[in-house]
């Protein structure tokens, strides 16, 4: 059933037990975004080390989709090069637009969000963390 799919364990798990949900005092990159339409808030912190995402964390509040997506994202990008992380962001967006068939090897848990595509109003919730991440890494001096 569609509902079960969407809220499948992995999303609820990330929502209830978010990974990397904390401030990152040493992180030189960060961006806070909110979705005023539903009140979702996400702040992304990242620490780049030698061109790699050494540490990525988030803070925020909101619906299960926005928070689980942020949690999954931090896991997915940590350890990747900036370039890889950006490619991943593109891949995730493609999945959310229904354009790209997701690849579990690269997206990992994020594939669980595929079901959201059916609910257009909630796509914004799912991509909020990615928007913040992309703004953080393309901020001043990071383009």
């Amino acid at each position, binding site marked *: 059933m569609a509902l079960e799919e969407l809220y499948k364990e992995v999303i*609820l798990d990330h929502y209830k037990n978010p990974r990397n949900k904390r401030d990152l005092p040493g992180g030189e990159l960060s961006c806070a975004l909110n979705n005023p339409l539903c009140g*979702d808030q996400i702040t992304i912190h990242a620490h780049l080390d030698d061109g790699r995402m050494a540490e990525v964390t988030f803070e925020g*509040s*909101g619906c299960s989709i926005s928070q689980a997506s942020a949690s999954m994202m931090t896991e997915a990008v940590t350890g990747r090069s900036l370039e890889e992380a950006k490619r991943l962001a593109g891949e995730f967006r493609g999945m959310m637009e229904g354009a790209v068939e997701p690849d579990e090897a690269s997206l990992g848990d994020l594939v669980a969000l595929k079901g959201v595509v059916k609910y257009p109003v909630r796509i914004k919730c799912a991509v909020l963390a990615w928007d913040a991440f992309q703004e953080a890494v393309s901020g001043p001096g990071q383009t």
Partner: protein
Amino acid sequence: MIGELDVARIRKDFPILERRVHDRPLVYLDSSNTSQKPRQVIDRVSEFYERHNANLYRGVYELSEEATAMFEDARARLAQFIGASDPGSVIFNRGTTESTNLVAHGYARKVLRPGDEILLTEMEHHSNLVPWQFAAQATGATLRFIPLAEDGTLDLSGLESLLTERTKLLGVSGMSNVLGTMPPLERLAAAAHAVGAVIVVDGAQLVPHATVDVQALDIDFLTISGHKMLGPTASGGLYGRRELLERMDPFLGGGEMILEVYPDRSTFKAPPWKFEAGTMNIAEEIGLAAAIEYLEELGMRAVRRHEQEITAYAIARLTEAGATVFGPRDVEQRGGAVSFWFKDIHPHDLAQILDQEGVCIRAGHHCAQPLMRVLGVPATARASFYIYNSNDEVDALVGALERAEAIFGA
């Protein structure tokens, strides 16, 4: 049957209520957002197009005279529905948002001077806030706000210091779309008039759900959204006290609102036509007349009583189920928009799970972000009721909440 309404019979008039979503019967609890339409309204619109369609005023032929008569008859009906003795005090337009903007342009921009104040409340809908922000920015006036009391009513204890001779306009919702709160309009109108201000009542929620008498309440402007009171989308209007309408500048310029047009200047018709430029929402207002007939047949007192009963039942059942309900508890002081927060489940998650059960509620800020900040929540879930809703549907709502709880294990 609740109160005096025969809900089972009423439901038969609403074709959409036969629909199923996700293989469940539709439980539509979002009438504060927009109401459903009875067969009588849908048919009136079709019949207009099939038998009488023509443009107004302009045609010297029978079809056009029929359309004009139907349109002007709709104006008289809407005027009488809100207690206005003069049909000419009702301007037709798309609804509350367009109406508020009309007053903000034609009236507020004309009278406001730097240092003047517009007094609103903390619970206003964006449609009764953003147009005043624009007017304030254009004129140098300032916005002030009547705060909310703990119980979700307006805190009028400081009214005297808020409503002063600097206040030129008091804007207040007759019934909050988030809290249901119904402020004491008669008292507020008198207080506004005492300092020489006009009162603009946002009637988007009030007019569909309660008896309104602009003359008895001594209201200067009242906004009306037809689509929330069984009428077609794009129907509705603005009531304005005649003397004020006369003084106001026109807003939209164009055909039909003019008397004489020269290349460089124009003169204008008398109200209400001064404010009705171009081809109007003809079929829509004629459909609204059918909606008003429908409501009048039920009787607005019965409508209100029905909603009080279902609202009381909903507040009780939701509270019992563990939800936090916002707004006044006393159904004498509130309408049927019931906002709540349920066990830490985000309203969006809640609404989506409810949808799977066929239950339509609204989740979000309800176009009232400043109020959300006052309430200290990012969003609420909201169930709202109308003449076709029954206590069974409240039970369906509560049942669906339990299912959400099971899923979220909250």
